[in-house]
């Protein structure tokens, strides 16, 4: 079996200015194997698969695919050689149908009818329910991913690369995906699976290659190790366990009552009589698959969207008609999901980015006048307290890595000592170390008597942080349930995990 490896990397190296992204990376993927590439953000996983897929060329080393030397000049060549890849971010046209989108991605698309038949066949074979005639705009994230996967499968790949595929899926959708991958593997396709979610790798992968700092640090059978050991291999040291202690629920801080809001844009989601209560010292987790009203709920709480009177009350004061600045002054703060362009201005320095939200509470702006020295001092304080790795407060936000910018954005809000902080996807795309720091800061904030709402798609994160859990599904918020004793299956059902489970009507 070993000599018939589908793919082999031998001493692959790649340098970018100032960074050795990959250094002497060697590993082998056998046919029928689901092979995990495990590592923190910045460990070199993406660079590695980009080289396999022909997006980037290695500086040294060689690759072998099906016994042939593999050095694709571009993705087209890689596809011709039998490599397919499903990206984390989908490249689909909303206005087109499933079949049209798939045809666009093919070198020589067959006639429409034949293509529809083949799509139907593949989706049947691999248990990927999908109607080729539907428009992509109407599909859930899980269904969009199926479009990408089917597009890949129609090329009969020898090696399928999946880049963090479950980050947008409900647990049930993820299970469905793994069933598909297993079927594929059983037919001999090799699968290279990139993730930093340890549990799913432990349950579903046959082999794991662990990258750290661009090098292969270990290779193992993930089923034989605990998630803890895998994490230790990944970060190169013990993870500090999260400290949840010392909090107790106090008085009611925030009340949201019958909050209904039409969708702000054509692609948006309407909020439908959302109600919640948040107490001091409490963390409320809100789960849900992206696009079910998370952005809209955050906007309604931050003040970007104003709602009907009496819908949002902070310590009894009605803030529904107030804008973001008035809400911040009252103590209701927020950190949106999109760090670059929403929570921070990419082109502005960190100093300037403090002015985005901290002007009033930290006295950085008085009577409209900017106190730049105070802003700089506050930026430096955030950088120090949250261990933001950056040359200094004058650095542009876009020059920071995702994890560091996220620490800055969360730190900027936490250090304003809010009464209530609402965060959306606080650790999305953030490396494990930064994620742990962000989570701990939210727990510490709650311990100091603030209320925290965590909106997230990462269920492990929600279970780790929150005292109570509700699910957001198509703009409706479920009743909260205590997190203790809640299983992933129950959560999945709360999220509307049945979504897409029935066989599609073809």
């Amino acid at each position: 079996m070993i000599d018939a490896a589908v793919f082999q990397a031998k001493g692959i190296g790649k340098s970018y200015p100032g960074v050795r992204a990959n250094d002497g990376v060697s590993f082998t993927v056998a046919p029928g194997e689901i092979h995990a590439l495990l590592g923190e953000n910045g460990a070199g996983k993406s660079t590695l698969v980009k080289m396999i897929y022909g997006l980037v060329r290695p500086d040294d080393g060689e690759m072998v695919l099906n016994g042939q030397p593999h050095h694709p000049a571009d993705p087209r060549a890689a596809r011709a050689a039998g490599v397919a890849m499903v990206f984390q971010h989908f490249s689909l046209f909303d206005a087109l149908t499933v079949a049209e989108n798939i045809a666009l991605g093919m070198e020589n698309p067959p006639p429409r009818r034949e293509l529809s038949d083949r799509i139907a066949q593949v989706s049947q074979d691999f248990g990927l329910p999908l109607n080729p005639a539907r428009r992509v705009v109407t599909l859930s994230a899980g269904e969009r991913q199926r479009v990408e996967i089917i597009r890949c499968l129609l090329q009969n790949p020898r090696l399928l690369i999946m880049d963090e595929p479950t980050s947008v899926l409900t647990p049930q959708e993820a299970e469905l995906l793994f069933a598909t991958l297993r079927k594929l593997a059983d037919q001999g396709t090799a699968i290279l699976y990139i993730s930093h979610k340890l549990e799913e790798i432990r349950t579903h992968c046959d082999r794991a290659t662990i990258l750290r700092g661009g090098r292969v640090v270990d290779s193992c059978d993930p089923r034989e190790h605990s998630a803890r050991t895998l994490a230790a291999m990944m970060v190169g040291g013990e993870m500090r366990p999260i400290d949840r202690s010392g909090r107790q629920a106090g008085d009611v801080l925030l009340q949201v009552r019958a909050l209904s809001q039409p969708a702000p844009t054509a692609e948006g989601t309407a909020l439908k009589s959302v109600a919640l209560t948040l107490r001091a010292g409490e963390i409320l987790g809100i789960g849900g698959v992206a696009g079910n009203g998370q952005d809209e709920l955050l906007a309604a709480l931050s003040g970007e969207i104003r709602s009907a009177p009496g819908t949002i009350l902070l310590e009894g004061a009605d803030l529904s008609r107030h804008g973001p600045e008035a809400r911040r002054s009252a103590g209701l703060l927020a950190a949106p999901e999109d760090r670059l362009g929403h929570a921070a201005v990419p082109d502005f320095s960190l100093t300037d980015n403090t002015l985005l939200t901290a002007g009033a509470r930290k006295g950085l702006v008085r009577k409209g006048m900017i106190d730049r020295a105070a802003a700089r001092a506050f930026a430096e304080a955030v950088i120090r307290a949250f261990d933001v790795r950056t040359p200094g407060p004058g650095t542009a936000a876009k020059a920071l890595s995702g994890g560091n910018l996220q620490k800055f954005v969360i730190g900027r809000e936490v250090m304003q000592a809010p009464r209530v902080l609402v965060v959306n996807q606080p650790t999305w795309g953030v490396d494990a170390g930064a994620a742990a720091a962000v989570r701990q800061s939210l727990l510490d904030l709650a311990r100091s008597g603030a209320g925290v709402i965590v909106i997230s798609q990462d269920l492990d994160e929600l279970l780790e942080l929150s005292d109570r859990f509700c699910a957001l599904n198509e703009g409706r918020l479920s009743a909260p349930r205590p997190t203790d004793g809640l299983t992933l299956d129950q959560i999945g059902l709360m999220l509307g995990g049945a979504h897409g489970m029935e066989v599609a009507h073809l």
Partner: protein
Amino acid sequence: MIRLVPRSDTPALLQVATPVMAVLATMIAGGILFAIMGYDPVAAIKTIFWDPLFGLAASYSRPQLLVKAAPLILIASGLAVGFRAGIWNIGAEGQYIIGAITGAAVALAAYPAPEMWIFPAMVIAGAAGGWAWGMIPALLRNWFGASEILVSLMLVYVAQRIAAWMAFGPMRNPEGFGMPGSRNLQQYPAASNPELIAGTGAHWGVVAAAAAVLATWFLMSRHIRGFHIRAAGTAPRAARFAGVRPETLVAFCLGLSGALAGMAGLFEVAGPAGQITDKVGVGYGFTAIIVAFLGRLHPVGILLAGLLLALTYIGGELAQLTMNLPAATVQVFQGMLLFFLLGFDLLTRYRIARRVTA
């Protein structure tokens, strides 16, 4: 093979260098054009860029520099604020015309009263007229999502028709023997905008332009509203998150640039132009767009760019007189300047790389 690679950061030097490169390229291309037309290119360029300042007639043309630069700088200062926020007021010419009309209307209504308040009231009326004309595209954008680019531009032609109507109708000089055009405000001391220091060309508009440069610099770099404007221009969602209401910003920017353009129109009609005619708009409102971009939307840059563009006006006229260059020379020059500026601007966002073909 040569290709363009996006830059992650713009070198500060290039920000300053590209306008200079654009000016040089304009001189070269203009020279080539003149040579083809049979003129001496060196003499023509010298006539346009050098003689107005240091030539034989410099004592006449130097004051003209401030006269021409003042409205350009005043208008461009306001436009640049909006451009920074991504709000494109292309109709400053219309706001300039309306400001001239409303400002002059105060004077004509008060004629021949000698009171001191008349000129300040005219300035306020001019600013208010320009502001109101700018609010039309602002409100249409806020209420119906209409493009402020198109609406403000089309309102220029409406303003021009109104100016013609005024010159031939309600504002016609009753003592003008039926000639079109209003009374000449230069001959009405309480309403005129005279040269403040003889021989400099400096009138109240120059003072206002200097004040506008200072005020917009202060607004954009020291005040939180300027911060919000800059944020809205580069990351609208972040600005919204900070608490900016896009509607308020649209109204503020179009109102401000309209008011400054209206003021510029008033200073012109009460000073150098003297009267409302059907040709009250002479294109300052459009040229100011070039000034704003050539000045990198920065108050100091606008100051320099305004002076340069004023020079092309004066130099172009001089070249017409002395070398018989066609009247369109100025427009060709200004057009080339914008063209080269936009072209060289590509270099601030991309760098040129040679691709080694595989």
